């Protein structure tokens, strides 16, 4: 029996490698990034020739993984929860075409929004697409579910959604790993017509998808991950999903809950077990990480007849991450309030690193825009979003990746000038390019700053898909050569930079400004590695 110490994310990656995966595709996003990073640096992946890539965005990642499944191989696409919004189109439609090689999409939700714009619950996407959802309780289940998920996917020719949350993604524990099994052999589909979703065929495929549902329900009811723990006290029955199960049992001596517990880790919801707990117990408490997905389904619209408690009825806070105390309190367990933190403690929000190239860009932008009313800098998601906070207060929006350029165009269309978009290099390749094309086609008077720090910094420095290509992309889209301005954002060049910004702010067309200097964190890491290599050579 071989044991490894793994983060939840790493357990998924190791699980995939041991279950015979052939390709993993991702766009980084907390808390999902470490899955793909693990494969990137894994010797096992290299030996087995497992393809990996940091894709331009989540949509291209899911489509590529689907292509590999089409060719008979096992594949996975990994993303944070909002990434699944971007990939929703291929995800929903892949349920209709169906999969061939085992096909898993991993969505990592972020309740409490530790590093995200929202706390959406990906289980709704599974429901929406009519595909099975797996929701691991711990690192071991995360590992085992990849094997199981690939089998389920191949058996029913359907994509499988693996849903995790931040706490599991970034928590480490022992995992028992299995022998590696062989990868599939590539083979083109014998009935490729099923992937042609023209209406006549889409209708046929959609029916096939719906016809699979009773079998998927049976799978859930017989799943080793959905378990019923009976107990004496039937005054309450507890339905608990995923990681919330740990918080529940933490509240009881030797982890023995005195009430019947139905632990759910596979969807569609196991009907038989749910009927049983409703038949046996007087009241039901639903504990789930994320939205009240199970609770609202069980209660229904009118909520008549059944006594169900959970997040919707206020027994558990409606928003935010769960923990043992929140769950304990919902069960009436008393928690002694701890020592109150002294009042002098102040929050410590994240901030740009000392000497970060973005800080120079913001400083210059503030000077260049001095005199104009505020509210005309539309921005995006990345380290540079921290420019919204003091001391910069430079940017006025951060909505979804790519929205800076398109929103700036909307503001310009509303009659304002100058209007600025601030976007990072990785975000530009993710979904800024199409918006820039719109702006060029309409000759919109906007100034687009592509803050190029040569990496995807916010998530830890992954490959940035448009590296070395940004100005060529802009030229190709039709941005005029003389309005593509490139410089190194150094403090000593501040005056020069302000001058460039002012010139372009005055131009009534599309300008692209590219401040280019490497992120300090990746720079330090790279120099350290290079020095080590050089030393190794000398020895």
């Amino acid at each position: 029996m071989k044991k490894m110490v793994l983060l939840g994310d790493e357990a998924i990656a190791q699980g995939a490698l041991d279950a015979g995966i052939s390709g993993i595709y991702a766009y980084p996003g907390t808390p999902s990034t470490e899955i793909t990073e693990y494969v990137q640096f894994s010797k096992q992946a290299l030996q087995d020739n497992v393809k990996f890539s940091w894709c331009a965005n989540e949509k291209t990642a899911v489509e590529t993984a689907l292509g590999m499944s089409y060719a008979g191989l096992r594949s996975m696409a990994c993303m944070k929860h909002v990434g699944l919004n971007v990939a929703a189109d291929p995800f929903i439609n892949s349920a209709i075409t169906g999969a061939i090689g085992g096909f898993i999409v991993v969505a990592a939700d972020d309740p409490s929004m530790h590093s995200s714009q929202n706390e959406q619950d990906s289980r709704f996407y599974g429901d929406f697409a009519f595909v099975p959802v797996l929701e691991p309780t711990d690192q071991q289940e995360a590992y085992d579910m990849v094997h199981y998920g690939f089998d389920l996917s191949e058996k029913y020719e359907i994509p499988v959604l693996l849903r995790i949350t931040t706490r599991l993604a970034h928590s480490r524990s022992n995992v028992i790993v299995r022998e590696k099994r062989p990868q599939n052999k590539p083979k083109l589909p014998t009935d490729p017509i099923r992937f042609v979703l023209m209406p006549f065929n889409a209708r046929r495929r959609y029916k096939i998808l719906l016809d699979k549902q009773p079998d998927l329900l049976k799978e859930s009811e017989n799943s080793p991950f959905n378990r019923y723990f009976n107990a004496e006290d039937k005054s309450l029955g507890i339905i608990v999903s995923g990681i919330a199960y740990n918080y529940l049992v933490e509240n009881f001596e030797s982890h023995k809950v005195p009430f019947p517990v139905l632990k759910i880790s596979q969807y569609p919801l196991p009907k038989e077990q749910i009927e049983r707990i409703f038949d046996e117990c007087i009241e039901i408490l639903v504990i789930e990480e994320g939205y009240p997905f199970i609770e609202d389904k069980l209660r229904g619209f009118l909520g008549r007849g059944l006594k169900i408690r959970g997040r919707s009825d206020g027994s558990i806070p409606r928003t935010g991450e769960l923990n043992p105390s929140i769950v304990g309190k919902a069960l009436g367990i008393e928690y002694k309030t701890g020592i109150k933190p002294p009042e002098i403690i102040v929050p410590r929000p994240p901030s740009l690193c000392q000497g970060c190239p973005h800080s120079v860009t913001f400083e210059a932008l503030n000077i260049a825009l001095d005199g104009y009313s505020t509210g005309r800098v539309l921005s995006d998601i990345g380290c540079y979003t921290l420019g919204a906070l003091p001391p910069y207060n430079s940017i006025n929006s951060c909505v979804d990746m790519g929205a800076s350029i398109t929103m700036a165009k909307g503001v310009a269309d509303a009659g304002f000038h100058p209007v600025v978009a601030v976007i990072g290099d990785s975000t530009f390749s993710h979904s800024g390019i199409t918006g820039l094309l719109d702006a060029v086609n309409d000759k919109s008077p906007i100034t687009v700053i592509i803050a190029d720090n040569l990496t995807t910094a916010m998530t830890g420095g992954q490959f940035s898909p448009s590296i070395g290509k940004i100005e060529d992309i802009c030229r190709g889209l039709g941005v005029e050569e003389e309005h593509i301005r490139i410089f190194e954002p150094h403090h000593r060049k501040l005056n020069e930079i302000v001058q460039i910004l002012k010139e372009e702010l005055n131009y009534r067309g599309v300008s692209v400004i590219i401040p280019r200097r490497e992120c300090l964190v990746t720079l330090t890491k790279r120099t350290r590695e290079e020095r080590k290599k050089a030393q190794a050579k000398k020895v």
Partner: protein
Amino acid sequence: MKKDIIISGVGGQGILSIAATIGYAALEASLYFKQSEVHGMSQRGGEVQSHFRLSDKPIASDLIPEGKTDMIISVEPMEGLRYISMLAPDGWLITNTTPFVNIPNYPDLDKILDEIKKFPNNIAIDAEKIAKEVGSPKSANIVLLGAASRFLDIDYEILKNAIKTVFYKKGEEVIEGNFRAFEAGRKIAFNL
């Protein structure tokens, strides 16, 4: 045996090295453990904390229940106080006294230190200074781990082996420096 530990500080202060060291030691001592850490936005100079749970029995929750923490190890004085509501009444607060000032409204340090001294079970040490004195200026985090080792119930040799494992890639010199930092911190805790 059960030890629930919160390791706190600011993103980039070496919290994950402390956690990793205890992790390797737990593995060698055949203990169960769960360690949750913070990745993402907060790592850019924000407040970060790691929950470390050690036990000879299986552990359920990745997070420590409120008011049940046996020990807070803080690489930064204000950050240790931030999680104080998590500490058990007889828990220990082991903290660095050198502040990490990256916000304009950082409170008066003396007031912070006074608050720390209000806890009967506190060990407040200038870990940066000690790390410098033993010739390993980057090892303030390991000085604190050394102090914490008094309460860890893990064999001394096992902990030292774990340090070796964590810093293995950085070479012999770094390992030795961290050993000295560990010893210095440990000595302070035992001489209290």
